């Protein structure tokens, strides 16, 4: 009901603003937002000899939604922002299936023309090792033709660039100087990723706080020195648990630019360390004990070369992450592999739980996570085993090479991301895992090459991950996963693009999954064998009015084959329609 009150006030406020002064409305209140109509129909494809009389043969869903962003500028440099979501389920008539929610609320502005502040829903990013929303598997599995799905997943989960959506206060300000140093920049924030809530009548979890700050010194145009700090902690008195988290992370970096005509050589060194422990106040004497303490450092060097016209860049670097380096806000994954899938969570006469597959990673917005995890989240080594927690993945030591080439008229665009890593210490053995990864993409824009007015492009994506460990029969492991994607786009009429695509994924070999307790302490290993093939074929029609205004109709054929008695194969067909409009 509190939210309803907010909505009432909000709406009356809009009315008030509108009726107050029509001439000043355009200046003081303005609107933008997003609207979407979506429809999906999924069909379970069964073998002819199958006698599944329990699982529905088809499922259809859809909705219309409008996110109305209201920006109110009561005075110069101040803004109150509210995002109101109206959602109407497809098939609900006359108010049935209608929801109205406040999705975001924020006040922001500049105090005395000096200090910029944001209060409410904010989107934060600091460094890759302190506060960073690593795209993880999302960076691997999206072909261009799945951008409609990607837009929905990112939008619904508030994935804005590499930022976490948090709620709290953020301030930043800077100074510029005449001598010695060019500028001094400060940034501070304090947020509450999780409020206190009850597990039972007498058991309340504590408030969780994420705070931090940055100081950046820019002596000249070539050098930038930054110091960053974040701390994720719990306030024990806001709950009834005696155990509360502390996870400070410290980070220093030096960034040097060398300008050579049309190019820049950039070098970045980042170092830091973390400490994570839980304060246990359950001792009757009142003493607080630190339990499950883990400390770790990291070192990252990258040398980057790029052309100022963005046609070429390359990065070569080295990274070392301690096995005990823990950074809550940098190691939380987007994907929660413990989430049930939305579509057909049960199949095979409702006797099998369907695990997250390639198509779910592409299309299911509900398996993605918006909350920070204080311990390492579960992974699926088949889909990502080398850097499952991004650049801050602990227990990694190795080199990486990244690059991009785009011909001046963008006829050819090539991307490369590769790395060779090994573990710092072995898990359950002295033997170390060694990793190699290669991700490459190639796109031909034939219309640019031949000067056609209609867009014709072919793009291919290939990625491979290899994990090996030697030793005895029990110690040894070998896991290979490969992915191939191919997209063809053909504009047959103005802004109408025919889409065809194929994506296949395979994983073979064996791995050990880590068993961790609630404090993230490694307690054991589960041996897992993989022999899986995922496939997605899509054809579609895209009407692209603008970059953020499009209608997309797709037909997807997808499924997974498991050469295993534990998992039953499944195949589905989907019709997907979305009309997405940026207001």
């Amino acid at each position, binding site marked *: 009901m509190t939210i*309803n009150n907010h909505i009432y006030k909000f709406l009356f406020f*809009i009315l008030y603003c509108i009726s107050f002064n029509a001439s000043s409305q355009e200046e003081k209140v303005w609107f933008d937002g997003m609207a979407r*109509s979506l429809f999906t129909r999924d069909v379970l494809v069964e073998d002819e000899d199958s006698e599944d009389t329990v699982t529905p043969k088809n499922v259809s869903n859809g909705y219309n939604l409008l996110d109305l962003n209201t920006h109110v500028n009561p005075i110069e440099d101040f803004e109150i922002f509210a995002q109101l979501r109206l959602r109407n389920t497809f098939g609900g008539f006359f108010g049935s299936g209608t929801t109205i929610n406040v999705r975001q609320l924020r006040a922001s502005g500049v105090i005395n023309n000096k200090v910029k502040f944001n209060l409410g829903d904010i989107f934060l990013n600091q460094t890759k090792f302190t506060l960073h929303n690593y795209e993880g598997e999302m960076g691997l599995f999206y072909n261009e033709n799945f951008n409609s799905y990607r837009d929905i997943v990112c939008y619904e989960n508030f994935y804005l660039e590499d930022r976490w959506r948090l709620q709290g206060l953020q301030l930043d300000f800077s100074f*510029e100087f005449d001598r010695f140093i060019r500028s001094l920049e400060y940034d501070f924030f304090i947020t509450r990723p999780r409020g206190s809530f009850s597990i039972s009548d007498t058991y309340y979890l504590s408030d969780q706080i994420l705070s931090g700050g940055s100081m950046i010194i820019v002596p000249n145009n070539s050098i930038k020195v930054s110091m960053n700090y974040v701390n994720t902690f719990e306030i024990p008195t806001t709950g009834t648990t005696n155990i509360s988290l502390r996870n400070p992370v410290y980070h220093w970096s030096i960034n040097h630019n060398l300008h050579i005509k049309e190019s820049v050589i950039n070098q970045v060194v980042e170092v830091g360390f973390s400490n994570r422990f839980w304060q246990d106040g359950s001792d009757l004497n009142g003493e607080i004990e630190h339990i499950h303490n883990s400390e770790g450092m990291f070192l990252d060097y990258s040398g980057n070369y790029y052309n100022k016209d963005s046609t070429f860049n390359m990065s070569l670097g080295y990274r070392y992450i301690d096995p005990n380096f823990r950074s809550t806000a940098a190691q939380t994954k987007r994907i929660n592999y413990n989430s049930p899938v939305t579509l057909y969570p049960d199949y095979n006469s409702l006797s099998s739980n369907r695990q997250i597959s390639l198509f779910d990673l592409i299309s299911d917005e509900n398996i993605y996570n918006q909350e920070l995890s204080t311990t390492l989240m579960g992974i699926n080594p088949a889909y990502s085993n080398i850097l499952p927690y991004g650049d801050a993945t602990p227990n990694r030591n190795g080199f990486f090479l990244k690059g991009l080439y785009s011909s001046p008229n963008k006829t050819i665009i090539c991307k490369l991301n590769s790395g060779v890593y090994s573990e710092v210490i072995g898990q359950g053995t002295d033997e170390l895992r060694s990793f190699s990864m290669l991700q490459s993409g190639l796109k031909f824009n034939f219309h640019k090459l031949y000067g056609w007015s209609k867009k014709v492009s072919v793009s291919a994506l290939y990625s491979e991950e290899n994990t090996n460990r030697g030793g005895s029969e029990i110690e040894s492991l070998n896991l290979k996963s490969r992915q191939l994607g191919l997209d063809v786009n053909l504009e047959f009429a103005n802004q109408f693009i025919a889409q065809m695509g194929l994506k296949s994924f395979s994983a073979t070999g064996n791995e050990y999954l880590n068993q961790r307790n609630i404090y993230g302490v490694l307690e054991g290993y589960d041996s897992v064998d993989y022999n899986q093939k995922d496939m997605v074929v899509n054809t579609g029609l895209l009407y692209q009015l603008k970059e953020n205004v499009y209608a997309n109709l797709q037909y997807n054929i997808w499924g997974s084959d498991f050469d295993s008695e534990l998992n039953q194969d499944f195949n589905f067909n989907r019709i997907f329609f979305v009309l997405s409009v940026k207001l």
Partner: protein
Amino acid sequence: MNFDRKILKVTVCIVQIFICSHTYSQRQNFHPDSIPFSSNVTLGKGQTSNISFTGFYRFLGYIRNQTKTFPNNSGKTTAITIGDFYREPMLLLKMKGVTKDEISFGADFMINSLYKGVSEDLNRELTLELGLNLKTSISNRYGKYNIKTGGVSWYRQSRLTVWGNQSFNRTSIYDRRPQTPLTDNPLDRYTKFYNSGLVDQGVRYGNRAFQGLFVEGLKLPLNFHIKGVIGKSNFNRSEIVTNDNFTGCFKVKNILNDSLSISYQHLNSTADIDSIGLNQRKYKINTLELDKKWDNIRLQIEAGIGQYSDSDEPLSLGDAFIANLKTTRSSLVSFNVQLYRLSPQFVNVTGNLLNTTVLEVFPNIEGVGASVRLPFKSPMVGLGFPVNNRQGGALNADFELGKFKINGGIGLFAEIEPSSAGISFIHNVNSETISRLNLFAQNWGPYNFLNSNYRRVFETVELSDGDENGNVDYLKYFNTIELQTKYNLKLFNRNIYLFTLTQINSCQKSFESIPVFSDDALINQSSLIVDMSCELNPKTSMVMSYGLERVKGNDLTDLDEESGMPRDQSNRLLGIGLDYKVGDQAMIFVRHNFYKFSDPNFSYNQLQGTETMLELKINFN
């Protein structure tokens, strides 16, 4: 302590920074335009959309005092409410926006409050009256295409496929609906009703609610027009929301010349009727329509075939034919002849017809369509409501004699095949009053005769000569006469309008040319409603209404267990009210009604009481 110390350090650090800022403030330059590091996203003003709001506020205070109730009444005889129980907006806020890319979007906020106490639990949720819509247009050399998604949107394409029930504007305008628009002055509403003497009001009620994707193609090559929707209507629905249930339809029209057009219509409706989607209930319709105009005459003919099927054996192909011949220009006498034949196998619930052969296509799903149950067993309805398993015709005409205007019609209809041993009829008097006693309920009242749908109540009459399957072995014949008169006079330079509406319906076993009043009629329903509006001053009008309805059944219909006699119902309404303009776009309406529903042969069918309504309506644009 460690934590407190850290907070202290950070605080000291911030203070030092501010001191530093103050100390060097004379030397340093602060450039808000430069982009220093910020952990938050950089905010900027993006593209903006034009948004406007229109709508109305409508307060309805309602008091009902029952002096006679049905025996199964709860014991509560007085109701004091805000609103009259139906889901209607108190504050309707219609938002309409247009993006810079010329894409329209709209939603209608519905904000209600019960005014029943200050507890938050009593505040109603903010919701939408209908839903969300997105709309855009694409123009190219092949035509203009309008694309709309969302809903609820109102759609129609032809009488046999998608078309809302059309009335002949023969109604009492004493009662006010939430949607009733405000006029400049109170009397204008009655003046307009007096002046608009057309037999057919056109599109007024002619649309159906749909959700989905709507496409319309205009100015296509070779004078083609297309329109279509794929989505859902609130009929033919599955029990499980995520199961397949879709209704799609389209129309292709070719305008051969200014006076002649032909079109093809298709409709397909399917709904899974089991949880896994093995069996479907579905019907398909294909029709052709011709529209020809002469100088003063317009002829519209639509004919087609349809087929219905479900888990049982599919019905055979059903044929349908509907024709309208009417005058197009106002003249001393204008007429409209309507002929139709709708076979029992022609099943459709989105067209301009009542379905009487397949009960299952009516949804009974909460929140979807429980409220749309319509008269099913051989409905005895007024003119302008075609019914399947029926054929017949109606002649409507209207003419003027000075300030005296008359319009009326006579219709004769017959069933094509013998049907169920039952007849249903809609009450013409006190229908809205009785429906408010038990909203959207089926088979209620002391004898379970009554069924409520939106602001109407209808009764189902059982016949005793049915076989073991509940069917009779004869055809039922229906006769209808409707007569409306309108008169305007001036008294002390003030306008007074008098309206009368007479409706007579009968159903019997044999063909008759006029309605039957004797016991040969299985059921006879006659009603008279007299409305008067009197201009007291330019801002005030007084209104009065008197309604009388008689319904009589013969011995083959339901008999009371005690009296052994059939229906002999009478319904009376006496109402008085005031319309007062309180300001520009703001009016107050007061209504006080005395109602009485009685039947000497069915002793429990006794209702009596009063209803008082105070309505304040304010429009804003």
